[in-house]
C-alpha cells in the first residue's frame, strides 16, 4: 500500500473481506443517491462519519485533512442551491439570488449527500489494500483473473509513469521547449507528453503480458491464491451493521 494509505493500526474493518465490504458500502451509496430525505442522509452521514473517525485506524488529523475536499463540496453545492435554487416560500431575494425554504432544504440535502458519500468512500479507501481487494473479487465474486492481474500490474506501474513524466519535463526543458499559455499550451503539452509516455507504456505492457504468459498464466483456468480472503464473522457483523444503519436512518426519516 502506498505510504499515506497505510493505517496506524489495523482495525476490524481492515480484516473484513474487501469485496464484501465494497458491495455493502456500495449499496449504502446507492441508497443515498436516490433519496432526497434530509433526515435519512444526515443519519447516515453521522453513522459513517463516526465509523471513519473511530474505526478506520488513522489519526484524526489525517482524517480531517482528507475530509477537507468533501467539506468544500458540501459548502459549494449547498450554497449554490440555497442561493439560486427554485422555491416558493421565498425568504429573501435580490437580483438572481433567491433564498427560499425549499432551496435551503434541497441545498442542505445535496450538500450532506456529497459529504456522506465522501465519508463512505474514505471508509473504504482507507481500510482496504488494493491487492487484497482484487484477490477477494476473484475469490468471492469470480472476477476474471485477467482483469484482476491487469489492474494489479497497472497499480505497480503507476509510479514508473510518474517518474517518466518528470524525466520528460526535464528533457523538454533541456531542449528549450516552452509552452504557450492557456488552452493552446495545454494542447501542446498533451501532444508532447503523450507520444513518448504512451510508447513506453505500451512497450512495457506488451513485455509484461508476454512475461506473465511465460509464467504459465492461463486466464481461463482455475488457480490457487496466495492471499486467501475468506468470509468470516466480521463480515456478518459488518453486514448487520450496514443493514442496521439503513433501518435506523429509514425509521428516523419517517418518525
Amino acid at each position: 500500500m502506498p505510504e499515506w494509505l497505510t493505517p496506524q493500526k489495523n482495525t476490524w474493518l481492515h480484516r473484513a473481506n474487501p469485496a464484501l465490504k465494497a458491495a455493502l458500502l456500495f449499496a449504502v451509496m446507492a441508497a443515498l443517491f436516490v433519496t432526497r430525505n434530509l433526515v435519512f442522509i444526515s443519519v447516515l452521514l453521522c453513522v459513517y462519519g463516526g465509523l471513519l473517525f473511530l474505526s478506520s485506524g488513522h489519526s484524526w488529523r489525517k482524517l480531517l485533512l482528507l475530509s477537507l475536499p468533501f467539506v468544500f463540496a458540501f459548502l459549494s453545492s449547498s450554497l449554490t442551491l440555497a442561493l439560486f435554487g427554485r422555491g416558493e416560500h421565498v425568504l429573501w431575494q435580490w437580483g438572481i439570488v433567491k433564498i427560499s425554504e425549499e432551496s435551503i432544504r434541497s441545498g442542505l440535502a445535496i450538500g450532506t449527500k456529497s459529504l456522506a458519500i465522501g465519508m463512505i468512500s474514505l471508509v473504504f479507501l482507507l481500510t482496504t489494500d488494493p491487492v487484497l481487494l482484487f484477490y477477494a473479487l476473484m475469490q468471492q465474486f469470480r472476477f476474471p483473473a485477467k482483469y484482476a492481474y491487469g489492474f494489479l500490474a497497472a497499480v505497480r506501474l503507476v509510479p514508473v509513469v510518474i517518474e517518466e513524466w518528470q524525466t520528460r519535463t526535464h528533457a523538454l526543458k533541456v531542449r528549450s521547449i516552452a509552452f504557450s499559455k492557456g488552452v493552446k499550451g495545454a494542447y501542446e503539452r498533451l501532444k508532447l507528453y503523450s507520444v513518448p509516455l504512451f510508447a513506453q507504456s505500451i512497450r512495457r505492457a506488451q513485455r509484461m503480458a508476454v512475461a506473465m504468459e511465460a509464467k504459465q498464466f492461463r486466464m481461463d483456468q482455475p488457480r490457487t491464491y496466495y492471499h486467501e480472503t475468506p468470509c468470516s464473522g466480521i463480515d456478518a457483523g459488518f453486514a448487520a451493521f450496514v443493514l442496521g444503519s439503513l433501518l435506523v436512518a429509514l425509521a428516523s426519516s419517517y418518525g
Partner: protein
Amino acid sequence: MTVAVGVEQLRLKFPGEPDILFQGLTLQIPKGQKALIVGPSGSGKSTLLQVLSGLIPQAVEVPLKYGRIQRPASWGFVFQDPDTQFCMSRVDEELAFVLENRQVPRRDMEPRMREALALVGLSPDLLNAPIRTLSQGMKQRLALASVLLLEPETVFLDEPSALLDPEGTEQIWTSVKQALKDRTVILVEHKIDAIVDWIDRIIMLDEQGRLVADGEPDAVFRQHKASFERYGIWYPGVWDDYAASARRRPVSGSPGPSRNGPEPSRAGRKPSVLPPAFLTHSPQAAPGRAPDSRDGTSLGETAAGAAPPSRTGPDGRPLLELEQFEAFRGNACKLRIDRAAVAEGAWVAVTGENGAGKSTLLLALAQLVPTAGTYVLRGRTIPEIPNKRRVPEGIALVFQNPEMQFVADSLFDELAVSLASPDKSREELADDVRRLLGMFHLPDDPGRHPYHLSWGQKRRLSVATALASRASVLLLDEPTFGQDARNTFAILECLEALRADGKTVIMVTHDRRAVDHFATEEWVLQQGRLKEVRQIRRT
C-alpha cells in the same frame, strides 16, 4: 543423446518486414547442454528463443513455418528488462504468482518460495520486500527464482545482463551458474566474457538469422573472430583489440585518421567537419596551444602518449567550477561537492555505485534540480533563483532513454528545432541538418520519424540534437548502457570527435573500460560526496 529442444527448417516473417528471418534454420539442443546464441542486432536471437519455447506463436503472434519442432516439456524464460518481468509489487506475491498459475496449494507456497530464493542467492528476508526496493541485479535474480518455481527442464535466458551494471551482471551470472547446473540452458547474450567459460556450445547467426557457426567455444572463436567483432559482440578481449586496432572507422567523414600508423603531430588541428557555427573555437588553433595529440591518430597510438593538456578559457579559468555545491532531490541534499573544476575539452567520467549521486550531479549542472553553493560556468556565476531555474546556456543533457528527448515527427524537424535561428535561411537550415545527419551516421532521410530508428541511431540522434543546440558542454547519462560493442564504440568515437572540436564531455558511466580508454579524468562519487578525482593518462 536426448534432444531437449529442436526445430527443423524454420522460417519466420514479421509483418511489415520485407525479409524472411531464419530461412530454413535447423537446430537441435541436447538435454543438459548450455548453448549460447550470438549474432548482430536484428538477427532474430530473441525471436528464436521465443519460437523454441513456444511463446511464438502462443503469446506473440508471428507467422512462422517449420518442418518439425520439438519444444521442451517444461521450460522457463528470463527476459532482459528487470522492470517489466514482474506484474506484482512484492517479492512474495510475484513468486506466488507462478505457484498460483500452477495451482499449488497455499500451504506449500511459502517453503517453495524460500527454496527458490535460496537457490539464486537471495535472502529469505526479502519475501515481504517491495520489488522496487531491489537493485536491478537482484531483480534479475528474482526473475530467475520465479522461473525455477516452474520446475523447468530447459531455461531460456534472453540477454539477462544487458541492462545491468557490472555488479548486477556478476550477481546474475553467479546465480545462473549455481541454480542451472543440471538443466538445459539456452542463452542469448552479447556481453559474453563472464559466462563463456560455462558454455558448451556457441551458435552464431547472421543478420538474417542464418547459421554461421556452431560448435565449441574455442573453435568458434578461432575460426570466426572477425565475425565477433563485426557483430558487435562483447567477447573477452574486445577492448584490447579495439585499442590496438589500426583500422578504425573515421568518424563522420572527417578527413580520415591515418590508417597507416601515427602521423607526426601537426601544430594546429585538422579541419573540422562541423559547420563553423558549432565550433567552440575557430579551426585555426591559437598559437600557444599545445598540439592536439589526438588529431588524426588512432587511440592507442598517440605519438606523444600524454594526456591532452588541460585547456583553460581566455582568462585562464577552468570552464566550470563548483564550490560548496549542493544538489537537492525533494528536500534532501543528495550531493555535496566541496570543490571541483572542469577544464575545457576535458572528458570527465563520473562513476560510483547506484545511488551515489551521479545522475543528480548531471541534473544539478543542468539546473533541473534545486542547488546551493557556487557554480561558475565560463566565468559567469549561475544564479540560484528558485522556481525560475533555467538550463544554463551552452549546456545540454542527454538522457539515458533517447526517446524522452524527441519532440518532433521527423528527423528534419527534430534537428531544426534546435538549429533554427532568426538569421538563418531555410537553405542554410536544410544544409546544417543534412550535415549533422551525416556526421552522426544517421540515415539521409529527413522525413523519417525518430521512433523509426534503431536504438543506436536514436542514441546518436539525441547527441546530435544536443550539439544542434550549440551546446559546448555535453552531459550524458550512461550513453553506452545496454548496447552492443559496435554501437558503444560508435558513440564514444562520436564524443571523442566532438571533444577534438572543443566540446567538453561529462559522462556518467559504469563502463570501466570506456573510462580508461576515453576519459581524461574520473570523478568517483560515493554517497553523495566527491571521493576522488583521478587524472587519466591516455596511452
